């Protein structure tokens, strides 16, 4: 295995059911693989299980059946604390709503995953956060409380935070969901730039065609299964 380039994310026959008495099967056997450097959209109607799948891939939840490999490592047997460490080192998250910590400044939000992982704040962390904020065009907003930023600016802070740990995979759940067309396009261009420059793999959940159009690969889900998987050349 060592001499083959390993897929960032591999999911085999993933099933996820919720509830104990009334059991609903939300994911009904998903097979999915994401290579490093890939820039992939995950689309599908509301309630088809996109967020559910993203949570499994992001180690925020455990599947009912099937195996998930992250960077070639089976994450099933890992303890909660080991999964937490993996989240803080290999993954970046961009959430749709309420994604930042309102009590902190933009800079502090961005550096938070590093501070949490190492247990204390260092100047190097703040330098790195500052650099990333500059990259997303918010150099002059470092000291702002995130509640004083616009929706699009907040989402760019969230992107900077997702990238601060140098993740191999960023999972973004509707990163442009509450943004206007122009800001949405800006955010997507930003993600794409990072993908091309740093080689970070992206899995982006969206239900907007225009957003999906920014992606080379578009996976479409319907009712808990993958319906189509297209690569645009």
């Amino acid at each position, binding site marked *: 295995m060592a001499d083959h380039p390993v897929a960032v994310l591999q999911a085999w026959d993933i099933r996820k059911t919720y509830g104990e008495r009334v059991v609903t099967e939300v994911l009904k056997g998903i097979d999915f693989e994401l290579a490093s450097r890939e820039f992939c959209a995950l689309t599908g109607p509301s309630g088809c299980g996109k967020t559910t799948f993203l949570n499994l891939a992001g180690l925020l939840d455990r599947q009912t059946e099937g195996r998930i490999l992250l960077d070639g490592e089976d994450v099933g047997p890992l303890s909660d604390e080991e999964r*937490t*460490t993996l*989240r*803080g080192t290999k993954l970046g998250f961009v*959430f749709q709503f309420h994604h930042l910590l*309102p009590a902190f400044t933009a800079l502090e939000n961005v550096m938070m*995953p590093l501070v949490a992982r*190492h247990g204390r704040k260092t100047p190097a962390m703040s330098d790195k956060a500052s650099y990333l904020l500059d990259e997303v065009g918010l150099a002059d907003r470092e000291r702002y409380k995130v509640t004083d930023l616009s929706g699009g600016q907040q989402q760019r802070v969230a992107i900077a935070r997702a990238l601060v740990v140098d993740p191999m995979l960023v999972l973004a759940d509707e990163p442009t969901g509450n943004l206007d067309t122009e800001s949405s396009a800006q955010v997507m261009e930003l993600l794409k730039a990072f993908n091309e420059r740093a080689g970070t793999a992206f899995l982006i959940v969206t239900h907007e065609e225009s957003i999906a159009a920014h992606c080379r690969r578009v996976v479409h889900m319907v009712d808990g299964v993958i319906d189509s998987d297209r690569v645009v050349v």
Partner: protein
Amino acid sequence: MPFELFVAVRYLRDQPFQTGLILSGIGVGVGVIIFLSALITGLQVSIIDRTLGSQAQVFVRPIEEAPRIHPPRGAELLATTVERPPQRVRSIDGWQEVEALLLRSPGVTGAAPTVTGPAFAVRGLGSIALSVRGIELESYRSIVDVESRLVEGNFDLAGFNVVVGTELVRQLGVSLGGRVRIQAAGDRGGVYTISGIFDYNSVTLNESLVFISLRGAQTLFGIPGGVSAIEVKGRDVFEAEALAEQIRDRTGLVAESWMEQNGDLLTGLRSQSMSSIMIQVFVILAVALGIASVLAVSVAQKAREIGILRATGTPSGSVTRIFFIQGGILGGLGSLFGIALGIVLALFFASVARNPDGSATFPVALTPLLYGRSALIAIGVGLLAAVLPAREASRLDPATAIRNG
């Protein structure tokens, strides 16, 4: 700055209203504890001071004479009469050695031989019952600060000098330098000159207690060279009973502590302490519940943010610590307010509660020890109160928290 401290402090600062409210709550609680402790301690010190201002901590006396049994004459042992020996002043055998032994004993800071007995002050046709106490001023000083009670004249017991209380002077209608005849049993007595007048803040003592020289009392009560008691002062007032016990064992004499002699007072002091402790316990409980509920509310409010922290790699242990730190900080800061409030309350009370003559009724005992103890309690309570909220926070499932937040 450590991550957990950074987050904890920010969250406290970010909700100034909540933080301010609970800090005031803790402050009031700690303030009450400080005020109450200072008050009760001050009160008790002053009560004990008043009692022991006129009395030694431990009295060492000769063993009671065994009651004699008188069988009824000419009959079988149908009934017996038990008769106590007649009351008379008796001396401790070899008291000089006993005194030396006591002075060498650990925990003893002073010992004074005294002769105490009943007598009457006679003037004209009237007489007033007295308790005459013969002392050597030198040694008696080390037991009781008797000179501080003097209001007129000086404590001169040479020859036929006597120091009496304000009430006796009034009753007899005499003044400093006046004469009074003191009459004891067995037709022994003499005329004494009043060299000093004391005020013990007690009508009874001011009327009946008089001081003469040790030698004079020995003559008056017919025990030349003897003493009826050795009075002892120990290092700690509240250890007097243990000291008495130790003296009983070492000397084989009767040793009575002030606690035994003032059973009612001690019961009073103890129940006072108990009720003060009870109040403090409930105040602490209320403070703990206050801190716990504020933290629990904060966990609920911040569920989503905790979820985000967890999702981005914060270990659950860090989340636990964040809330413990908040509890500790609240307790610590609150106790600072509380100490300030307690001092203000105590000083205000001391300035209001005054004797008619304007002197403080009693001192409020504000000590660094009290502050330290209160602060420690508050911080401990803060940490304890954080246990449940912290556990709840660390158990939050990040996916659910983010989804439902």
